[in-house]
């Protein structure tokens, strides 16, 4: 951290003179001592993000347990073991499968709800309240609500709904391998679709009204306007929504852990839960770290999509 007695060099370099009070306003001295401003953030950032990120690489090369004792350097053994570990692969597959199953409805339903709300233009507060407000609830609340009230067989809402339309109730929504993952997906859609709904709604409201007026004068019907004006204009928003959704879905843990515990027969267990089981209940923190970095390698390309496409857009605009 710089003390007040020693101003950082770049400022002095810019003016090429020694520090002189008279020249202060010219040199914008209120821009000095920036380190003091960024230091508190950087301190927390370094200790709780950068350091675990770096030290984790070291830990992943050891056989350490969770208390930090008994660690021996084992080289890449943990990684080699992870690649041979069938449970790593099945958990990764569950994670990717959940991401596919959830992203499609979350994007399409989000878009549909936004189009609906935008078309209607009345009682916007009601649409926002019912479709978006669940997004603000804690995962613990949502998952307990669904596990205890919607999915239990017999008196659960899902079974009662089946019974009311004359179908056979008594489905093991969370205990049958055929339905458990779909139930987790349904819960997630109910819970988080509001976020995508809001992103799409904002994009729709930004479409200039004169585009529609012109199309209407040309005799374009509602469907034509949707297909030729609205949807093309939503392309960039869709990229944003899909990327954010894939990133969020890959990090699935809460819903599965709370509702199925990864079951039945590990059929819903995501990779984060496997990391948790290895590191926190199996005490193999070295191995858990290695699996975490494999997971990170899976996520990183997706998180790079947005900055890279933004850079490409900027370059194209500069041409």
């Amino acid at each position, binding site marked *: 951290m710089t003390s007040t007695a020693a101003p*950082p060099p*770049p*400022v002095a370099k810019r003016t090429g003179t020694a520090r002189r009070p008279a020249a*202060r306003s010219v040199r914008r001295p*209120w*821009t*000095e*001592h*920036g*380190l003091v401003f960024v230091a*508190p*953030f950087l301190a*927390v950032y370094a*200790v*709780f*993000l950068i350091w*675990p*990120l770096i*030290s*984790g690489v070291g*830990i992943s090369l050891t056989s350490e347990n*969770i*208390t*930090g004792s008994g660690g021996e350097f084992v080289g890449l053994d943990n990684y080699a073991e992870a690649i041979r570990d069938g449970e790593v692969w099945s958990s990764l597959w569950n994670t990717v499968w959940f991401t596919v199953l959830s992203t499609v409805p979350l994007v399409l339903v989000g878009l549909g709800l936004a189009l609906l709300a935008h078309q*209607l*233009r*009345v009682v916007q507060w009601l*649409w926002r309240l019912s*479709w*978006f407000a*669940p997004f*603000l609830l804690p*995962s*613990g*609340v949502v998952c*307990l*609500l669904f596990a*205890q*009230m919607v999915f239990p067989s017999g008196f659960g809402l899902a079974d*009662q709904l089946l019974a009311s339309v004359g179908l056979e109730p008594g489905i093991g929504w969370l205990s049958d391998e055929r339905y458990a993952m779909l139930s987790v997906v349904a819960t997630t859609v109910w819970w988080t679709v509001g*976020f995508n709904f*809001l*992103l799409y709604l*904002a994009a729709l*409201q*930004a*479409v200039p009204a004169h585009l529609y007026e012109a199309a209407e004068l040309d005799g374009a019907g509602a469907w034509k306007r949707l297909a030729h004006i609205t949807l093309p204009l939503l392309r960039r928003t869709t990229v*944003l929504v899909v990327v*954010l959704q894939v*990133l969020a879905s890959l*990090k699935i*843990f*809460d819903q599965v852990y*709370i509702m199925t515990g990864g079951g039945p027969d590990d059929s819903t267990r995501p990779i984060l839960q496997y990391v*948790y089981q290895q590191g926190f209940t199996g005490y193999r*923190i070295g191995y858990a770290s290695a699996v*975490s*970095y494999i997971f*990170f390698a899976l996520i990183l390309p997706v*998180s790079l999509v947005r900055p890279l496409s933004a850079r490409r857009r900027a370059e194209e605009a500069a041409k």
Partner: protein
Amino acid sequence: MSTTVTAPTPTETGGGGRRRRWTPGRIALLLAALVLTAAWLLPLAWAVATSLKPESETTGTPLAWIGSRVTFDAYTKVWESGELTRWFLNSAYISLMTTALTVLTCAMAAYGFTRTHFRGRRLLHGLVLAGIMVPPQVLIAPLFREMVQLGLVDTYWGVILPQVAVPAMVFILVKFFDGVPRELEEAAFVDGAGRWRVFWTIVVPLSRPVLAAVAIFTFISTWNNFLWPFLVTTDPNGMTLPVGLVNVQSSFGVRYAQIMASLVIAGLPLLVVFALFQRQIVRGIAHTGLAGQ
């Protein structure tokens, strides 16, 4: 990212005519929307209805919306048990502390990155931006081991500190500060104000909307966070509300009214936040698209 949205009122974007007619097509759309709304509200309404029933009437088929009497028994029981009160206060303390520290450190950092010059500024800024790519979830194992070494397991600080340094929030604030003209700050400095005064009396008041957005999102995500508080607290007395609820769900047995009552209590602060700050929340998400992280 849609940064140009100004959340227009319905009439501003009213298409052709000022007010659309209720054509059959539009009525059909309205009906569809109402059905979907009912579907979305049904689980919530069912939770509230169940929490107001006598315990003996919460299961069995067919079920009535309202029991033989409306009672707040479940609420008084969970509140009297003490645990829920304790977790509620833990959650409130942790969320408020995290929010205050996040807003303060991120705003200062963003100001430092946009308005000051020092050796290594670009490098450090790049390092912070790169952190957006690192999901905190991949760090749970090394971070927990660090917490053991620092003696922060089962402490409030152990829950709070890892949630404070959020690079995405710095990113949002940097973008905002970049768009604010510097003349005001310069003028204040010429008038003899120090850099702290400039920051507190000019920058902070000018940035109130974006700071409010950062604060609201931080509060919501901290109140709702499950994974990290779940990992770093083992003592039931130190748990946050969501973690505590999940932890005891089995010990509730079949007392569904009480489970639902505690869920209502845990969800209520968020719905209050939503009711109070609906506009800021909606606008914040539209502007940044980052709130979900």
